[in-house]
């Protein structure tokens, strides 16, 4: 019986102890599943140790670290205040060298979000760099709620209403919002 093995046997399979993972992960760079997992794990730890107000994210319960769910609370003084929005994050295997795919799960009425939840945000597209992380993306999205980019709207009507009729816009926002409770 090898008792040195005790620790690793009890920990979850596939995840190396941190010291070992660091050894493996450090010298490598590139499209490596190991480093992606490690990066995501670090981000998770970061999110947990220093959470930002109004946003949170967590891996889905299916076990893989590559799909997360996040929650954004609508900022005060915007039509979205008091509402919460769920988003799904799907990380590519070469994350952070490619942007995650982010979708609104909660129906949202917003100039830069279309009706199936796709988001028009430059840092999620061509402006993505590895320096961004989940938290920054969430904070960007939160500020996007207050300051939509009406120059390139996905929802033209919303963009127009935002500028012209705030009252009506707010009504549309409330009308579209729905609490999604999957699972």
């Amino acid at each position, binding site marked *: *019986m090898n*008792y040195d*093995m*005790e*620790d690793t*046997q*009890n*920990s*979850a399979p596939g*995840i190396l*102890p*941190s010291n070992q*993972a660091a050894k493996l992960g450090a010298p490598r760079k590139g499209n490596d599943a190991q480093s992606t997992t490690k990066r995501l*794990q*670090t981000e*998770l*730890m970061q*999110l*947990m*140790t220093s*959470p930002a107000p109004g946003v*949170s*994210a*967590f*891996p*889905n*319960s299916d*076990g893989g*670290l590559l799909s*997360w*769910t*996040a*929650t954004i609370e609508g900022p005060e003084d915007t039509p979205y205040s008091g509402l919460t929005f*769920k988003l799904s994050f799907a990380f590519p295997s070469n994350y952070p060298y490619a942007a995650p795919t982010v979708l609104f799960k909660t129906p949202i009425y917003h100039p830069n979000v279309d009706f199936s939840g796709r988001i028009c945000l430059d840092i999620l597209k061509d402006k993505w760099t590895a320096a961004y992380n989940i938290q920054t993306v969430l904070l960007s999205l939160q500020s996007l709620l207050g300051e939509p980019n009406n120059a390139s709207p996905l929802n033209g009507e919303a963009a127009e209403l935002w500028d012209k009729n705030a009252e009506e816009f707010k009504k549309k926002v409330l009308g579209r919002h729905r609490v999604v*409770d*999957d*699972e």
Partner: protein
Amino acid sequence: MPGRTASARRQRVFDSVFGKASISLPTPVATPATGFTPSGQIFGVPPARPNVPDGLGQSLANVRDDAGHRSQSREVPSFVASHVNDQVRWDRSWHMVTHQLHLPDFPENRGVLEPLRPERDSIGADFYNALEVVLYPQQYVPLARQTEDIVAWHTSQVRQHFLQQVFPILSCLKSQTDPRALLLRGVKILETAHRQYLHGLSFIKEQIDTSAPETSQLVITRFARDLHAIISNSSIEPLQDALKKVLGWHVFAILGLPKTTSLYGPYRVTESKSHHIAAENQETEKSRRELLGLVESLNNVGLTGEKFHVAFAEIMNDAMTEYVYHGCKGIWSPVKDGLRSEFDVPGHVEHSSKKANPSLLLPRTAHHSSPSRCVTDLCEWIENRYAKLAVQVLSMLDTKIKVSWIDMEKFKVISIDRLANLRINELFDIVVNWPRSSGALDDLRTAITTAEKRLRLTDVFAHTLNNNLLHPGASTILILQTYISMIRSFHALDHSKVLLDRVAYALQLYLCSREDTVRIIITGLLSNTEDSKGNPIEPTGDKLVELAHLLNDSSENFGHRANDEELDWHDPDWIPDPVDAGPGYKRSKTADVIGTLIGVLGSPEVFIKEFQNIIGENFLKHDGTFEKEIKVLELLKTRFGEAPLQACEVMLKDIQDSGRVNGVVRRNQNLDPSEEELNAARTNPDMLDENMSPEGLLKPSLHAKILSRLYWPQLQDENYRVPDTITELQRRYEEGFESLKASRKLTWLHTLGQATVELELDDRNVTEEVHTWQATVIWAFRNDGPGSKIAERTVQDLVQNLEMDEVLVRSALRFWVKKLVLHEVAPNRFAVMETLNQEDRARSKAQSTASSVPGANDESVDDTGMGANDGIGEEKLGIYWNFIQGMLTNSSPTMALQQIAMMLKMLISEGFPHSNEELQEFLGRKVAGGSLELVGGRYRLKR
């Protein structure tokens, strides 16, 4: 000629299939077959015999006369003429007979009373004469070339009639929904048809009887056989389902089985839990009569062919399965429970005499010293009801199958086999329910006789074990408890331990992968078997108290080496090793639970190390004689030998010695309670309690335990500044010790001690048994005089003043906050709570009651063990809480404890070292705090 008959036969077969009614049609009279023209005869010449027309013209009534003249006519040389003559006569007779016997159409709703055709009255002597000719053509018309067997003809006409007219009616019956009515109707139709067919045959039979008695029987049986063959082969098909159902009902009713089973029940009633075998009563008798009546009528119409046998066999098979799988399922207790016996009373009185010697009931193969209840019941049931029914039914059938005594033995063997299967599948639950399930183990012991069955038992059990227990969802305590049950129940099942060894291997391997196994075993061994009031503590979920019970139980003689037995040549009870014992097999007479458990852990080092840690903790924390520790130590010594346990011995000796040294030093240095204190104690009414010692009442007092540094595990040497009074005491104690043991020096280990702290607050007094570092921290808050400002300290102050590690300081502060002595007035700033408000008072009361529950105190102390990294754990909880919040917000809104633990283990990179129980307790605190709620076993965030 042979070609001709062959073609005729083929024609008949052909017709019977395709239904061309040519045979049943009367042969035309006008064109008699003349046969081939014999050689030498001119073709086309009319028959030479002039008297042929006469012959034809003769009344058929004279055929007999004619037969009488046959010898004369034989003498007529013209054989051609006689050929034709005979043939014609044959043909006419054939026509006559077949015409009469032709079966009428089968009316669908034919009454029983309706006369059968042909009616007996309408038949004259002509018919009988013709029949005679047809029956014995050799005798009457020897020269007729084309003759046929009238019985064969009748059979084929019956077959055709049946297929064309009766069978469709039967097929239509399928639409009937009630199987009973369907069967009844079907049988009636068949009976009618049968009567019709036999009626036709009866004429032939009569004729045969009159002309050639004795031979008719053969004809009849052959006909009956053919008829039954066709009926049972064709008509059983539409009736089969109904037949099976009705048979099933009756059989189940007769055998006392519940009718509500899925197979034969008319409706699916929700299965009731209490399966019991109804006793024989009026109902079963009625069913029995009905069944036998049914079988008789079926037999009469020929429905009891092979298919019936198969159906009946299937039902009997199912009945046995039903009895075993439902009647015996879950009945594990060794004595009859009330419900069962209640139902047994009326029917089983008659058997009570037999019960006196149950071994009579068992089949010879299963003869065993102590047959178990279920097996006895089962055999009794087989003998008195099952076999009886089989005999009765089979005797109704005209087959050669008879149920013999040997068959009954076989029934019993089969049923016991099934019982064994059932028990094997239930075995895991049986083991878990030990010792309430000893009856079931008796069953197994009776039934498991061969090595193959033993192998199967272990295979199945190992599989269930793997599925049910060896996964992260089961706590180590649960696994160990199951293992203990396994050891004992398998020992009851099989003294040789072979079975246990086979199933336990995977379990042992798995236990080795659990970190807390050793600790749980040792704490179990060392735990109290009785609470403070002397009541035995029931085994609970959090400690393996069973082990302590076992340890105290003297009947369990552990530690005896098994090989003593091998040398005992005079042992009259010696039995050879089981055939399936593996190499290195050692026999042991007792279950030896503790021995086996310790043996699980493979290497003694791990065990001893853990044991050392735990007794070290106990030694330091408590005073007393440590009887339990000594007992366990002795046990371990017999198992592992003296040498590996030397360190523990030294530890024990240290403690015992330091008790003495302590006394001497204290006396020499005047550290014992002073006169003042003794007086104060006498005047203080609270001190009347004898247990309260007077010492420490007015000033601090010090006791020491002197440890041999090398032999104690990981002694923690964090240092901090102890209060001055204590330092003074320590100095005096040191002096005393050095004067006593000249060459030795005392090094104080501040953090390891225990202190009794008495706090006098404005509105209350608090007395706590705490660690020394906790005492030191609260000391720092002390007030020098009444009326001064409430003491406030920051964490930084404390760290600096006490030169103590910040982790320890925070941990101590948290402890005192929990005890409602301190509170955090601002971040990192703590103050003494001199007075409690209403709410706090309630909480403090609740706490004190909670801590008075035996064991709860131990728990809280255990948490802050020697390792001193408990403070870090507390710090971590904040992050864990973030994780839990994160997953409940995002991942899924409700989660079970198990899931949460899994996620934490998976996602926290440095691992989640806490057990599910600890997590549960943590979550429980959150629930109490109102940030979580527990709904249906799942946690969710409170909104």
